[in-house]
Structure formats: C-alpha cells, structure tokens
C-alpha cells in the first residue's frame, strides 16, 4: 500500500468532504435529438463529408497505359501521389507544405470570423461521433429512453440493443478503416485482395488500426477527445476576439431566467430555464455560461432553444450566432455592425493569398525534367596521363514524362571538356546521350575531364546542361570542378 503523510491524508479527507477529487469520473452525455435549420445544415455537411471520404477512392481517372486510373491515389509503394490530372513526386513534398500552410491559415481565418465551425461541422471527430450517435438513437432510443435503460439492471432488451449498436458501430468503423486504405492502393484491386486474403500485411494492419481508432474515438471517447486530447481548443482563444461570430446565449434577453408562472412586478427574461440547450449539447455543457473550452460551436442548442421559444410564444434565436461586441452593445440597447475586416482577418487573408499565389505559380511552372549533380567526395580529382584533370560526378536525371526519353548532357565552364560514362562505356565526348525510362529517375556516374583555367581555392564552377531531346525541355545545374589548390 502507498504510504502518505498524515497531513496529506487530512487534505484527502477534506477534499472528499467537499466532493472534490483529484481524478474525475466521466459524466456521461446523452444528447437529445433536435430538429431545425442548424441540425439540417449539420446533417448536410455530414453526408457531404462522408460521401467524399467513402466514395472518392472509387472515382476513376484515365492516365494512359501502365498508369493507375484512380483519381486520388497516394501510392507510397511507387512513391507517387496522383491527384486528378496532377502527379507528384517525393521531391514535390513542398507542395504538401504549401497545402498544409494554406489549410492552417484557412482554419485561422475561419475561426477568427465564425468561431470553431471546423470543430462543430467538419472535424472527423465531430462527423463520426454524430454518425455514431445517430446509430445509437436508432437502436437505443433518444436521451430519456437511453438514460432510463442504462439505469436499469441488465435485461435482454438492454443487451440485444447494446450488442446490435456495437456491431453496427464496428461495421461503420471497419468501412472507415477500409476506405482509408483505398487512398493508398487501388480501391477495386485492394477490395478483391482483401476478401481473398491476398492483400499485404500492411493493408490488414492499417484497416484494423483505423477500424479500432474509429470505433474507440467515435463510439467511446467522443467529447473526451475534444476536451482532453485535442490541442486545437487550447489555442483557439488566440484566434477568437470580440468580433468573432460564435454560438451565443443572449444573456441580456434571457436573464433573469424564470421557470413557470411569471408575475408583472418581477423582472423575467426570455429564458424559461427548461434546460433544452443543455440536454441537446453533444459535449454536455451549458451554453449560457458563455464561450468555453468544451464548446465545439455546433449550434444544436440553437435549434433546441428555438423550438422552446416557439412553443412558449417568444421570439426565436435567444441562443444565436453573434459576436461578443454586438452582445455588449445590445445589452445597452445599441446596435453594432459586423466587422469582418479586422487586422487579424486581413493578415490571414493576405497570408492565404500569398501562399495560394506561390503554390499556383510553382504548380504551373513545374517542369517535367530535373537534374542534380553530386561531386564525388573522393577523390576530388585525378590527373590523367595526358595532364588533364578529371572529376567524377553522380548525375541524377528525373524524367517526369510518360515516355522514355534520350537526354543530352553537356557542360559549360571548363576548357576542352570531355564527358564520359565509364559504366556504360560512353565517351569521352563533348556531350553524352543518356536514356531515362518513363516516369523515373536515371542515375549515371559521369566523369568530366578538361583543363581548368580559373581555379580559385582549388575549384571552379561548371554548369551541367541537360536537354530532353524529345521535348526540348532544358535545365541547368551548377556544380564545381575541383583541382589542385
């Protein structure tokens, strides 16, 4: 047993007396079904996101013989990323950097404008949790029914519902994990391979892994992910300000909350304190406490409250989308206008535009030829019997075209230069013809011999000029020619 000091034991007793503990039990959230425009919008986004996720791998895109015909394919095995008519090589990874920068800045911009809508509508955690909750409701019923059944002792009715629920969850999770794999290998092929037990170990491993994570995160962890695991809520406060539109309880209208009968002489707000907003909340919070870490800005409480307002004959939108500044003004009976253009948003927009322009230009001017020349590390140079100096290089030629091509390599900057490719027995000659297969990298060991005439500190620049003889595309790589100091 652990030994703790007397004083510490005293503290523990004191905490228990106050109902305080160092570790908290999980409070189960039973969100109640809501109907209304926000819910309809959230369903629409959910269906759209899931449709894209599940169906995109099945979209075909013809690229020619011996090329994958999947529209979106991250082929790690072949080191290519296909995105519709674009093809990326591993060395194009900086496009991914650009894309991530744009995604991050877009997130900042959207958050500073309309709050955490990413969290509320499009985050996979939200989308799958929502889907799993829908399944749960279909099988186990709505909030009250579920709470009642969970409080009862085990019964056959309870067990079959739970078993069915988890079975359906696992089914969806499996479909999700399987769809994930299809972004990395050809979808129809891997589907057949998967069920005939001929797929690779990786395919099975990652399918099971993502099945497990989907099931655990969307079925069991849910709001715990948002509140305790996700870093995003922690730094959202840096992006929100008084001008950000968020899900807001209009306290000036609602307070003081009044249940039941109202009296002429007692001031009463529109809030009837029915708790509909709390029971509708998928993270189990009370929106009337204001902006808080747990709020994912989904707005389901708006629908719940509107419903009650309508029934009690009060104006709707007691909970609404609004800014802190507007709320402060309204509380004093003033009106404000929405300020979308703020230094913060302008900076985000310009950063976004800049990244977009740089990316687009880079993408449009991307060449299908690439050259890199590595000087041998040892020996730096050798003197040949005829007195010339010779340097060795490793030349890598990237042929991004779909045709095998003959590349012509020559140099500039060295007197009486002659190139040779000893492995293939080419040269010495003033230019070399090197064949590179379609869609691949050719590696050649090339030597350049000549009489350096402007060595500084033992080296002088030498330009390797490469031309694709089929497309006439050309590129230059500056390397160094070494000699005695």
């Amino acid at each position: 047993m652990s030994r703790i000091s007397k004083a510490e034991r005293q503290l523990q007793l004191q905490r228990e007396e106050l109902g305080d503990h160092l570790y908290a039990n999980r409070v189960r959230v039973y969100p109640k079904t809501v109907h209304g425009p926000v819910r309809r919008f959230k369903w629409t986004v959910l269906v759209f996101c899931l449709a894209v996720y599940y169906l995109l791998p099945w979209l075909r895109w013809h690229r020619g013989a011996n090329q994958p015909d999947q529209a979106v394919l991250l082929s790690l095995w072949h080191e290519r990323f296909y995105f519709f008519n674009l093809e990326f090589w591993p060395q194009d990874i900086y496009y991914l950097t650009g894309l991530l920068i744009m995604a991050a800045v877009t997130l900042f911009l959207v958050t500073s404008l309309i709050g955490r809508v990413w969290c509320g509508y499009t985050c996979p955690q939200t989308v799958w949790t929502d889907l799993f909750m829908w399944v749960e409701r279909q099988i186990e019923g709505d909030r009250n029914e579920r709470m009642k059944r969970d409080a009862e002792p085990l019964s056959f009715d309870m067990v079959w519902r739970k078993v069915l629920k988890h079975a359906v969850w696992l089914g969806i999770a499996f479909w999700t994990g399987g769809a994930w794999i299809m972004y990395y290998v050809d979808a129809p092929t891997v589907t057949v391979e998967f069920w005939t037990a001929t797929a690779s170990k990786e395919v099975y491993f990652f399918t099971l892994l993502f099945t497990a994570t989907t099931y655990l995160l969307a079925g069991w962890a849910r709001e715990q992910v948002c509140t305790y695991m996700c870093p995003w809520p922690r730094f959202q406060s840096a992006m929100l300000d008084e001008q950000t539109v968020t899900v807001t309880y209009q306290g000036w209208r609602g307070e003081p909350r009044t249940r039941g009968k109202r009296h002429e002489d007692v001031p009463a707000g529109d809030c009837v304190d029915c708790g509909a907003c709390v029971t509708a909340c998928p993270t189990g919070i009370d929106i009337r406490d204001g902006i808080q870490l747990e709020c994912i800005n989904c707005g389901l409480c708006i629908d719940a409250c509107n419903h009650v307002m309508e029934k009690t004959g009060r104006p709707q939108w007691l909970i609404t989308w609004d800014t802190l500044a507007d709320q402060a003004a309204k509380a004093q009976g003033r009106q404000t206008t929405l300020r979308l253009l703020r230094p913060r948003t302008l900076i985000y927009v310009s950063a976004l535009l800049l990244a977009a322009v740089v990316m687009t230009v880079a993408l449009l001017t991307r060449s299908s030829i690439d050259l890199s020349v590595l000087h041998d590390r040892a020996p730096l140079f050798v003197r040949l019997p005829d007195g010339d100096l010779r340097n060795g290089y490793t030349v890598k030629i990237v042929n991004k075209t779909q045709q095998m091509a003959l590349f012509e390599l020559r140099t500039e900057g060295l007197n009486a230069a002659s190139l040779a490719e000893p492995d293939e027995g080419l040269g010495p000659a003033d230019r070399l013809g090197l064949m590179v297969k379609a869609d691949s990298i050719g590696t050649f060991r090339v030597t350049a011999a000549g009489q350096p005439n402007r060595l500084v500190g033992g080296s002088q620049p030498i330009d390797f000029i490469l031309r694709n003889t089929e497309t006439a595309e050309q590129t230059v790589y500056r390397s160094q020619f070494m000699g005695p100091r």
Partner: protein
Amino acid sequence: MPTKVEKDVVTGTNTTGHEWDGLKELNTPLPKWWLYVLYATIAWAAVWFVLYPSVPGITGYFPGILGYSQRAAVNTEVRAIEAQRAGTMDKIKALSFTEIRKDPQLMAAAEVAGRIAFANNCQPCHGAGGGGQPGYPALAAGGWIWGGSLDAIEQTIAYGIRSGDDKARDSQMLRFGVDGILKPDEIQKVADYVMTMYGKPTDRDVSAGRKLYADNCAVCHGEAGQGDREKGAPRLASHVHLHDDSRDAVVAQISAPRMGVMPAWHTRLDEATIKSLALYVHSLGGGE
C-alpha cells in the same frame, strides 16, 4: 506543502490544498480514464520487462523469457541476405566479364559488392574512389603499370605484385646509383632528360642524358618513355606519377629504386568478390 483546501475567489474552484511560496494550486481534476491509461502503460512496461532483456547484472543480464537478442536478430538478417545474394555471386563467378557487363542487374550487384570490398580491403592504400597516394597507384587515373583491362586488373588483384605468390607480377629495376652502374652526375643528366618527357623541361643540355637513357633505360621504359606493361615498366611520358614529379624524386628513384608490393588477394577473397572488385576498379574511370 500540504495546508488546507480552500475556495478560490476568482474561479470559484477549490484548491488542492498544496501551496508553494504562496502559490496555490487549483483542483481541476484529470479524467479517471487518463489515469487508467497511465496504469496500462505501467502494466505494459512490466510485461515488457519479463518478455525482453531488461535487468542488468554484474556479469550478464536477464535475457527475458522470449530470449530476444538484437545481435541474434542481425545475424539472422545477415544470413538471410547472404543466402539471397548467393545466387547472384555464383553467377558473377561463373560468367565472363563480357557476359556480366551485358546484364545490367548483375552489373549493378557486382558494382555494389566491388565498392564494399574495395572500401574494406583496398582503400587504405589506394584511397577512397581509387584516388591513390604517393607509392600507391591512382586507379581512377588510368596510368596503368601492368594493364587496365578487366582481365589484367583481375590478375593483379588475385595474385598481387612482388607478393611472393607463384603467379604474382614481378619486375626489378636496377639500382643504378647504389650498385654503381651510373655515376652520380650521369644520374643527374638522365633525370634532366626524363623530366622533359612529362613536360618539365630544364635549361640544361639534355643530349648526354638522352644518350644515357637510350643506353640504360629505353630497354624497359621504351625509346619515347612509353613504358612496357609486359615488364611492368612504368610509362615515363605521363603526368601520372607513382611517387612524385620533382627532380629529387626522379634522382632518388634511379639511384635506389623503390618497388612497391601488393599482396595476393586470392587467398583472402573469393573469386566472385575479386571479379566484382575488378569491375568496380575498372569503372572508376581508368578502365581500358
């Protein structure tokens, strides 16, 4: 240090009762499942301790009940790779150089095997990439003393030079100075003449040197200093120098020649490796 739990006025939350220099800690409890995850990792570690090598001792260590060892794992992998390579190396051994060079895959394998064998065995003397150093020929340059064809290179690697092996290449340059064949001033004159052959002419008259060269040296090194590979006589009309191109070095070499030794490698390396080495050395740039 523990004091007492109190309510914080600003947040309305209780403190944990811990206070350090007046700083009090608010009690914002961690979810219990988080604690259980920590326990699960501890349990995982305990299982790991039993299964895998863990506790060090004085003379050994507890090897774990799975008996796993990284060294054994590496050995297994190395043996697997050797088995995988065996077919390729057998092919390299059986086929001729011409046949190997026609097969790009075999060629690539030989090149890698050769490069590694070169780094392990040849590099200390001949330098990385065959750059050479004084007394040790620059293999990449191509100033071959005994020949630069694949067969000639293979022969040199297998049996060496002056190695004592029966099939070793052997040659002996006369000790013109030490044995008194040429007088000191004659050696100086020959040196002057030899230097003109590789583009380092002197102001002095070299006619006497030319005569002395023709009488004493041309029989091996050739009239024009072109060398003789049959005799292992280096080409003198060349910018590739085994030792140095200074006058002192030439004089020293004529007076008391230094003749290097290369060991025979057929006793240490297998035939396929020697062939791979020959292919690699040949590809360094000097191959003929």
